């Protein structure tokens, strides 16, 4: 697969070639420097969105398509697919119709909300590449509305029942002997892709992945404490597995590996050497910080509650609700006096966290 070798077309009736593209950044076009991406990163929400679209497709349609949005690095070699939206299209044996107006308006709407993202290409929910794919690909990579001068990215996600969900990414090069032929044919070149996710998405993915082993495919949200519990349990389980493996190796039941042993030894030596007194001191100061802030926060909450209640409760003692009564007014003032006192108490509270931060 190293060199560009022509593979027999998968479908004899269609006019395209499967080519494996060399991974070295060699320009494909003979004259201009390449603007083609070498690596494509797909963000999980784009994939999930495609899968969602696939499960909402009309019953009579085998595949549905949509537009990919994302960012491109300055030289165009790195492409990150961040978002996508569905585009309605109909496909028969003879012809394909893509709602171009829809695609244009939707693109406009998306760019208004997230102006940093650009049009990257399109996706389809089957891994077939046929003449229609070539037509759509040429539509997406055309000048003007398309991705020109960069080639459009094509992402296929196979969603056929009974088979694995497999994703492939392609870019294309124009091919064809006559202009008429060139319009409905193109050369799909596979490009490597990876699923990339941000730090913040990790926790979201964790929850989503947590639902996969459940019968109802649902998962209630965890509280912080539950998440911690799960993490601790997972660590314990992994430690168990490692220690099982080690004891199996010692009992000569499992295959030993020098590299694994070295790695484990290195990890063990990471345990810090600290004096018990030091730990004791750090521990105590830390826990005191936490408890102090927690205590203060609750005190403040109570004070605010108190002041809110006093502000509204003073009047209920009076028999009248009118505002012109002198006695009534006096009572209300008293209530506010107490509220003010609460405020002063909070003044002490304010000194607390400030003082603590001063220490640090």
């Amino acid at each position, binding site marked *: 697969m190293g060199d560009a070798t022509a593979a027999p077309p998968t479908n004899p009736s269609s006019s395209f070639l499967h080519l494996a593209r060399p991974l070295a950044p060699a320009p494909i076009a003979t004259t201009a420097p390449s603007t083609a991406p070498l690596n494509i990163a797909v963000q999980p929400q784009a994939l999930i969105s495609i899968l969602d679209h696939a*499960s909402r497709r009309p019953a009579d349609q085998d595949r549905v398509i949509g537009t990919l949005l994302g960012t491109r690095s300055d030289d165009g070699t790195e492409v990150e697919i961040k978002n996508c939206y569905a585009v309605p299209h109909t496909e028969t044996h003879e012809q394909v119709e893509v709602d171009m107006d829809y695609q244009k308006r939707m693109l406009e*709407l998306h760019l208004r909300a997230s102006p940093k993202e650009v049009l990257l290409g399109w996706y389809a929910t089957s891994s077939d590449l046929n003449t229609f794919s070539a037509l759509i690909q040429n539509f997406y990579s055309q000048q003007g509305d398309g991705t020109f001068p960069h080639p459009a990215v094509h992402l296929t996600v196979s969603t056929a029942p009974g088979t694995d969900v497999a994703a492939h990414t392609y870019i294309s090069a124009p091919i064809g002997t006559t202009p008429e032929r060139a319009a409905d044919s193109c050369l799909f070149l596979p490009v490597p892709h990876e699923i990339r996710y941000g730090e913040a998405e990790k926790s979201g993915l964790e929850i989503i992945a947590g639902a996969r082993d459940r019968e109802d495919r649902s998962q209630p949200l965890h509280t912080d404490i539950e*998440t911690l519990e799960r993490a601790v349990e997972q660590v314990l389980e992994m430690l168990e597995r490692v220690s099982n493996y080690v004891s199996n190796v010692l009992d000569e039941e499992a295959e030993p590996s020098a590299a694994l042993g070295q790695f484990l030894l290195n990890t063990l030596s990471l345990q810090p050497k600290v004096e018990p007194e030091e730990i004791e001191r750090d521990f105590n100061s830390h826990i005191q910080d936490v408890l102090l802030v927690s205590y203060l926060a609750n005190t403040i909450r*109570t004070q605010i509650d108190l002041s809110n209640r006093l502000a509204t409760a003073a009047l209920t003692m009076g028999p009248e609700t009118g505002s012109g009564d002198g006695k009534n007014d006096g009572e209300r003032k008293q209530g506010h006096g107490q509220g003010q006192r609460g405020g002063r108490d909070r003044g002490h509270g304010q000194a607390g966290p400030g003082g603590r931060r001063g220490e640090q």
Partner: protein
Amino acid sequence: MKAEWEFVVKVTATGANIYRRYQLPPPPLLDPATADHSTYSTLRPIQLTSTGKQPIMANTDPKLADSPVRTLQLSALVVMRIIKHSTTSFPTPATGMLVGMDVGTALEVTNSFPFPVSTPDTQAGQVAMNPADPYYQADQAALALAAPRAKGSATYSAEMLKYLREVNVDAQGVGWYMSCSMGNFVSAAFIENQAFYQRQTDERSVALVFDVSRTSQGSLNLHAYRLSPAFVAAMKENKFTTESLQKSNLRYQDILIELPITIHNSHLLTSFLHQLPTPPPSAPTAKDFPASLAELRADAQTHIASNPLAPNYDTLDLAIDPFLEKTSDLLLESIEAHTQEQNNASYYQRSLGREQAKIKAWQEKRKAENALRAQQKQPALPEDEWQKLFKLPTEPSRLESLLIGRQVEQYARQVDGFSAMVSGKMFGVKGGLVPGEM
């Protein structure tokens, strides 16, 4: 050593007293005699203070019973979209629309899209366009928060919904979402947005709040809120005076109702998730093992760390200072705002008192005058003319102090949850590093 423990116990015992006085669930008082050095008894009071953390659980909250929406089901797509939108726009809050459908008392959110943030017009923008300028940040935040009820967003979402309907998405607006940092979401803008939605779309709409800062600590922090019926009624009249609050008995605890959230995956996604991690070889042989340490490291880089479903251990992080500092700052801010409200209220009281004194003086004067005129057999002057002469000051709205109260409650709960987590972790570390101590 002994003194430290006594401090711990004292702090929490006072906390327990405060709880009791306010008739929150009374935690059993800790007997100081049992508070010895064992981990359990020292941990217990901390866990008790965290009972306020999850105030609303499914079907246990009476406030939820008469709500038209009781549970919320999010699709994975919505979760990921909100996370992505919120983290890219951080620290400016992000807002967007939720679409889905309602099934009885459950609301299913199946898709979402962000609202466009209207940029200030360029002439005014010339000065304020510097992103380092704190006012620019504040402006952006205010703009983003105003987006859900802006006119432009309404047309935008109407158009978007029209297009989404064409591709078989459940195109019914079911609410909106926003991002926040460290739970600072309770503001007038938030309330107004939700009131706007709850008034508009058939009452069944929710506000999803995604906390960016707290999610980066390891646990997905997503909450769904609705305004309570009592608060909506008060909102409709737009009256938050002392009197109306007494009548409706509205407290800051009653403003928001939290809904339980579940996350639901489609069949297709479930099968995709199942095949994402490459399964380990069933019968490991010698050649499955890495040959050297370097290879193992490279392997770990490509396979474990980049696996999207790798377990997330951020929650085991021991750092406490950023959290405590930020929370203290936010608390101080709330207190300042509260003091300001208090000053406003007392200013109102003073001016009201002054006016009333004036009116009284005038009334007495008029009475004396009338008595004089009666003696002189002249017709009496009207005694209610004071209403025209004096204008009573209008009472400042108490809405802001209600919201501050709710916000402080939010912070306090957050701290409670955090201290419960952190003390658990710290005892664990201490136990691990000093064996035999406990």
